[in-house]
């Protein structure tokens, strides 16, 4: 009688210890670094690092969205980004929050080079290191790196930076989706 109880207790104890050890080992061995959801949201944001959403860059905003923040604070991404995020998170798309700015066509900064005094202030302000130059040397913008975030305009003491809208050409032209609500079934869906 007593031996069988003892055996039962020992067997359960051994099982529990082995399984506990296994799970403990697995939780260390298979630890997931970072939040995969944050990665996905971050990859949908436009990576302008402009800070118009109120966060210091796209990644902090992505983390905030993953924690339940509103998805409509990104003017550079505009409607397309909001739609993609709403799809990913399975929530209703909202219109862009005007408090954080309005959606504009894609722009790049261009420095009027003969007016530049080489103060390096815009280099420090650039979130993506798209401005090239050294102290007392003329600066210039690497066009392909520039995200059009406007952050270099304010620090420039001689106001020699222009924001130029990129005219759509064959490489960056995108198709404009038609207005929603044209088709009757769309309207019925929105009403339901």
């Amino acid at each position, binding site marked *: 009688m007593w031996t069988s109880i003892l*055996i039962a207790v020992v067997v*359960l104890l051994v099982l529990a210890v082995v399984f506990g050890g296994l799970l403990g080992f*697995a939780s260390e061995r*298979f630890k997931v670094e970072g939040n995969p959801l944050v990665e996905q949201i971050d990859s949908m944001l436009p990576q302008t690092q402009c800070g118009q959403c109120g966060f210091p860059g796209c990644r902090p905003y992505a983390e905030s969205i993953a924690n339940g923040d509103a998805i409509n604070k990104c003017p550079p991404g505009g409607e397309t980004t909001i739609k993609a995020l709403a799809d990913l998170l399975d929530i209703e798309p909202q219109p862009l929050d005007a408090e954080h700015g309005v959606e504009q066509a894609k722009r790049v900064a261009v420095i009027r080079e003969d007016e530049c005094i080489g103060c390096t202030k815009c280099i420090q302000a650039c979130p993506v290191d798209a401005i090239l130059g050294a102290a007392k040397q003329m600066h210039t913008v690497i066009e392909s790196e520039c995200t059009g975030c406007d952050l270099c305009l304010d620090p420039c003491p001689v106001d020699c930076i222009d924001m130029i809208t990129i005219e759509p050409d064959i490489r960056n032209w995108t198709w404009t989706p038609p207005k929603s609500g044209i088709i009757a079934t769309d309207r019925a869906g929105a009403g339901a």
Partner: protein
Amino acid sequence: MSEYLLILVSTILVNNFVLVQFLGLCPFMGVSGKLETAMGMSLATTFVLTLASVCSYLAYTYLLEPLDLAFLKTITFILVIAVVVQFTEMVVRKTSPLLYRVLGIFLPLITTNCAVLGVALLNVNKNNNFIESVLYGFGAAAGFSLVLVLFAAMRERIAVADVPVAFQGAAIGMITAGLMSLAFLGFTGLVSV
């Protein structure tokens, strides 16, 4: 061979776990609101039930029986199933984020389900051998998935139907489940295992 086929037909249709044996009713009512979640739940259940019947069979045959500890089977099964599912969840989460998105939240949910423990205990009661145990678990899961997906599809239709106020929501769901159960009773006598 035909014996294995009989086990499958028996568990899927004749002795359906949800509608005939009334096991696993909680997820049946709980996650059948949307077809998509019902699919995820079905996949997770199929996985867990098959795995659970394998593990509990091994634990019973090679640990409890030789030590004459058959009376410990319930608690041992709970322990084994919980650990194996938890472990698999960790591995899946690390190796395949995509699969984790599909199964993720349902895996721990189904672990504590009565259908899972029911399969393990019924396997012991029926003296199933290894292959029979696997098939029994898989068949039970397939039956569960079948009725869960059917029921979810029906509930999606009911959601837009003109249901009298008193019957809306869970009430009409219960009635539908009852009618489904009656319909599945029609399979009785198809095979006898």
